[in-house]
């Protein structure tokens, strides 16, 4: 019994030492030293397109089913940016919501379809058939970060 107690104690101390520290790490080691403001990326995204950045923000959204993305808030109200990671390579836990995160990744853009409101020349009859309302569908460029490593 004494031996088991000692073994458990040593295990607990080792685990505490291993897992202690400032935040849990995900993916690759963070290599950049200088942080880029999320607000700066959002205000001039084309400047950062394809560039590797280190950003810090509060996690305000997490992919519920697979943990494959998080949303980070900017320095000011109403600012947020999505950090997408390869499925399975990094899995963000839901517990990350509300915590500070440091993320390293590359800024990139994606074309997303704007939700059609079936307005314009589309008649009442067509409103129920959004697929046939092609002429009202528009796309927009959204900037995200492809995350390589994070500390939360």
């Amino acid at each position: 019994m004494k031996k088991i107690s000692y073994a458990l104690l040593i295990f607990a101390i080792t685990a505490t030492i291993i897992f202690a520290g400032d935040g849990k790490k995900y993916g690759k080691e963070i290599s950049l030293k200088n942080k880029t403001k999320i607000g700066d990326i959002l205000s001039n995204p084309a400047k950062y397109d394809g560039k590797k950045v280190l950003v810090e923000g509060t996690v305000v959204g997490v992919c519920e089913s697979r943990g494959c993305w998080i949303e980070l808030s900017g320095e000011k109200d109403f600012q947020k940016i999505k950090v997408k990671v390869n499925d399975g390579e990094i899995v963000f836990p839901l517990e990350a919501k509300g915590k500070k995160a440091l993320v390293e990744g590359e800024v990139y853009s994606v074309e997303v379809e704007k939700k059609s409101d079936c307005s314009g020349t589309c008649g009442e009859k067509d409103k129920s058939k959004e697929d046939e309302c092609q002429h009202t569908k528009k796309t927009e460029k959204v900037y995200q970060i492809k995350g390589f490593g994070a500390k939360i």
Partner: protein
Amino acid sequence: MNWRKWNNILHRDIGYISVGLIIIYSISGIAVNHISDWNPNYIINKQTFKIKPVSDSTLSSDQIVKKVLSELKINDSVKSFFRSEKKSIEIFLEGKTISANLTIGKVNIETVKNRTIIKETNFLHLNHPKKIWTYVADAFAITLIFLAISGLFVLKGKKGFEGRGKWLMLIGFLIPILFLIFYL
């Protein structure tokens, strides 16, 4: 000592060692197999409440947080908050997210709890620890191949591989083959 005796000894003892991992991988296998029907890691509860609309535009975000929490009679400590737009606020508490539409006073509270044991089995099965666990998982996969093959030769005679064993093994192979023919 003949080869069959060694086969049986290894099959038995490696089998004992593998029981824990087989159970872990099987539980998680079932859990993630139904990922479209449920969240295999978390129990997520969503509730909607109504509070008095917060229309005072002079209030700071901190004051809005206090007001919303006092309306909801929640005393938990606030981790952080976020305003995605002027009319709304999200307040993050431990295991809880409050999303409030300030103009209409509609509040959604999302509570997240871990699915104990299943979450841990998924963590290992889906190789979230990475690093050395990758090699443990590889070794376990090789062990399973060994157990499958050595299991064929545990018994001799009618109930062994030479008897009905080979036919049952064939059925086992036919199951995935038939599915591939129908679904591919």
